[in-house]
């Protein structure tokens, strides 16, 4: 089978078959491709294990400022010897002619015993025909030369002189074909592309993962016969607490647990009859002076139960399955497991046949549909339901039981003052907890960080 290659790859392979080891520069010449094309072509072939790139480091020698001067005018000591060719000369004359190289040239010639000093004259003694370093100087010239091509003994003297020699370390690449590439058949097809090559990542636009869980839970309850109702996020304390039999001095109503809106009070909180009957129920059962001003204080709802109870009080159905879903608030310190604002679903079943066992059955069915089968029920306490239960679900990964939805039957102290005559089963809980299990998140804050890295990579899980 022959393989389709890009034109660049084809040219490189062909050139390397003729001349098996080449530098990128040499490939440029032989293929007439640009340096960038060569670079990309080599990269592609390397990824396919067709090209082998051998990288090595080597030292390159070139002449520095003084080296070039000596290359052009000869070495200072040669210049001195040249001046003395025609007979001895006075030091002062030499100084004039040689300028600033006078000192070093005299020093070297004297040290090597190439000159004689008599009174204030200097004469040539017995210099070699080629001085140390002259060969190397000529060899390098204005080129860059690999260090291993130079006689290191002849170079050593020059290296000691300032600004004579510049030494660079350069990386060189040698490209060759792998064994596979040597025998591969190159397809003749023109314009084919490499269908096995990697492609850039694109990001899908999507709904928020938490929203997916919310929608899934909504869908489940709709198919279980529940209808969705909506209600306000800001509520009077009357509907958030008083109507739910939570006494006005209950700790949950304190500023440290509930968000109260600064200087905002509800004008109308309920019908006169509702207010009268709710306040009477509080006075009788909790034995305190119920204060309407306390009930007027506006709060950010602490549960969606206020929405359902208001709906029931207004509509008084004999038979109903309804739920409410939305943001609720708690004045808490934000941490990996606590948010000040989160989503809650809360629903009720109204009907003369409504029983605790039905309520448990609905819960079990719901958990089954979100994939949780190991559940159990424990008794618990809520101010507005009696009896009250909580669901415990077993999390295999954590190896422990986790508390999920709470449930119960609305107390007569809640339903009677509002004119609700049938038993009302109620259940509800936080959605983020379930979503955390689904997305395997350890930190609930991630849902609201809008971190694109996570949103773009989190798997859709259904």
């Amino acid at each position: 089978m022959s393989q389709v290659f890009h034109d660049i790859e084809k040219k490189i392979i062909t050139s390397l078959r003729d001349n098996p080891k080449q530098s990128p520069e040499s490939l440029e010449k032989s293929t007439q491709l640009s340096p960038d094309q060569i670079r990309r072509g080599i990269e592609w072939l390397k990824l396919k294990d067709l090209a082998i790139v051998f990288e090595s480091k080597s030292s390159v020698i070139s002449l520095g400022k003084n080296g070039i001067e000596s290359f052009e005018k000869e070495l200072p000591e040669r210049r001195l010897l040249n001046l003395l060719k025609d007979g001895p000369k006075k030091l002062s004359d030499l100084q004039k002619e040689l300028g600033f190289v006078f000192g070093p040239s005299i020093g070297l010639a004297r040290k090597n015993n190439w000159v004689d000093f008599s009174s204030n004259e200097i004469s040539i003694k017995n210099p070699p025909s080629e001085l140390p370093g002259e060969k190397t100087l000529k060899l390098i010239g204005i080129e860059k030369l690999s260090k291993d091509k130079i006689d290191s003994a002849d170079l050593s003297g020059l290296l000691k002189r300032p600004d004579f020699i510049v030494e660079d370390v350069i990386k060189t690449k040698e490209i060759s074909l792998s064994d596979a590439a040597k025998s591969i058949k190159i397809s003749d097809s023109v314009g084919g592309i490499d269908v096995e090559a990697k492609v850039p990542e694109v990001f899908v636009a999507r709904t928020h993962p938490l929203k997916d869980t919310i929608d899934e839970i909504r869908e489940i309850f709709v198919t279980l016969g529940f209808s969705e109702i909506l209600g306000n996020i800001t509520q009077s304390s009357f509907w958030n607490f008083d109507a739910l039999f939570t006494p006005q001095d209950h700790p949950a109503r304190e500023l440290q647990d509930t968000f109260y809106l600064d200087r905002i009070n509800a004008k109308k909180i309920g019908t006169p009859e509702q207010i009268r009957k709710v306040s009477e129920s509080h006075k009788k059962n909790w034995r305190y002076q119920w204060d309407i001003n306390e009930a007027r204080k506006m709060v950010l709802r602490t549960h969606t139960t206020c929405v359902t109870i208001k709906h029931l009080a207004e509509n008084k159905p004999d038979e109903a399955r309804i739920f409410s879903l939305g943001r609720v608030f708690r004045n808490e310190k934000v941490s990996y497991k606590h948010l000040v604002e989160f989503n809650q679903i809360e629903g009720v079943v109204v009907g003369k046949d409504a029983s605790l066992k039905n309520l448990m059955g609905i819960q079990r069915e719901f958990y089954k549909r979100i994939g949780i089968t190991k559940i159990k029920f424990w008794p618990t306490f809520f101010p507005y339901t009696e009896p009250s239960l909580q669901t415990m679900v077993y999390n295999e990964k954590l190896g422990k039981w986790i508390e999920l939805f709470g449930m119960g039957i609305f107390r007569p102290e809640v339903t009677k003052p509002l004119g609700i005559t049938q038993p009302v089963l109620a259940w509800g809980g936080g959605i983020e907890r379930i979503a955390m299990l689904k997305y395997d998140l350890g930190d609930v804050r991630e849902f609201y960080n809008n971190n694109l890295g996570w949103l773009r990579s989190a798997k859709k899980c259904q």
Partner: protein
Amino acid sequence: MPVIELSYSRLQKLIGKVSKKQISDSLPFLGLDIESEDKDLVRVEYSPNRPDYSTDFGIALGLQGLFGIKTGPIKLNVKKSNKYLISVKSNVSRIRPFVTGIVAKNGKIDDKTIKQLMTMQEDLHFGIGRKRKKSSIGIHDLDKISFPLVYTTTNRNHKFIPLNSEKELNISEILDTTDVGKDYGSLLGQSSQVPIILDEDQNTVSFPPIINAAVTTVTTKTKNLFVEVTGLNKDDAEDMLSVVATVLQSAGFTLESVKITGAKNSSPKLQYRKMTVNSSLINQILGLNLSSSKIISSLKKSRLDASSKGTNIICTIPAYRFDIFGPMDLVEEVALGYGIQNLEPTISPSQTIGKTNPVSLKLKSLDQTMIGLGYLEALNSSLTSKRVLYDMTNRDSTKLLSVLDSKSREHTILRDSILPGLLENLSRNIHESYPQKMFETGTVFATENPISEKISFSGISAHKDANFTEIKSIIQSALNIGFGIKIETKTATDSTFEEGHCASIMLNNIPIGIIGKIDSKIIENYKIRVPVVGFEISLSDSVLKN
């Protein structure tokens, strides 16, 4: 919810023949959540409506019932006595009008019992006592007190040695310098007179609801106790006393009565109540078909007493079970005694047809449209900060809606717009690849009668070529394709947007939103390096309008 530490070995001694595992398996079925376990110790959370579970004595009584070791009600055997008298002066009526009490004799008090009694006292103060406001308890060494006592008031110069102190302090010093004084002093208001209990020799016994006198401190050498409860309401005070009395009797004390007279006060009765519940209500609510005898035995396991008369169950409720308001509470007692684990969940076919709310349906449809246009959905808190909402975006903050005493600085203001949150999101993603396109729908708030809530929709696009035309095309298509709504844009100015690149979004000549290129100063504030365009429209005023 309050938490109490228990010891399995101590519980085993109190309950009778049960294993540690049986106890730990049964605790949740009393409504006690196990917080943590460490060898012999277990920490459980109990509901504040069951103050009798604030000690291991109370929990042992409950478990005995569940195990069937001892069932039926706990009878308080209070021996009538004339030795212990408290007379109440009418001057307390304006401050803390009621006192009640009981004497408990011949008990054994070890360190662990003292610890249990102290946590009980603290939990009762915090819960049903409402931080000592409604009612508070003092427990004293009976033998250090000479009766009769008087409950009266005194002025703030009155001196005595308070608990945990070595020297005499006056009332003002106690309120100013001790921890309890500082915590609860405000309950007494500014009144110059404060409540006090004095004994026959004018020695101070207690300064309710703040502190006892040091002289009556309970130690492991104490044999006999005197308990007083003071409060704003006679019934509340007696409720609290009934819990303490029940616990002390279970701890092995013999109870003797205290006589109380004067200023509308009277001796505590600590009596049973009778309450009738129809067995059909029980069976209907629980979804069971229990016989009267099964109901009665279940109630007995819940440490109540009951008998039947026809289909009615007549229940006898001890005084300390003041959490029982009416028949529905008895239904729960039957369920607990019967065992929640024995209730088999059943699903009954629904008689109703479920329906998603039309608003949710429309929002979901909008989500799908925006995804089709390449926009990613974001979710931000609606309770956010002034920095995000106003400071970073140069928006007018004069009508901000804030909450009181937030524990988190990032969550103090209700949003009146979604767009600022999305800009904040962009600033946290400058290292991620562009283009970045996001949208969000959610509730926004405004002060109006007293608060209006509307559903708003915002989108932003950030990349090197982002421009007005692009973002206008997006909102135009989203509304037209999604909802058949045709919008127009009209030149406008807005502090969030750049001049000349900003318009009002109009529907039938009424502004429903704003659109444009985000002002470069805001982009700089957020260190975003590409241009950003965005819009925000009120869905309540357009798509969701009836």
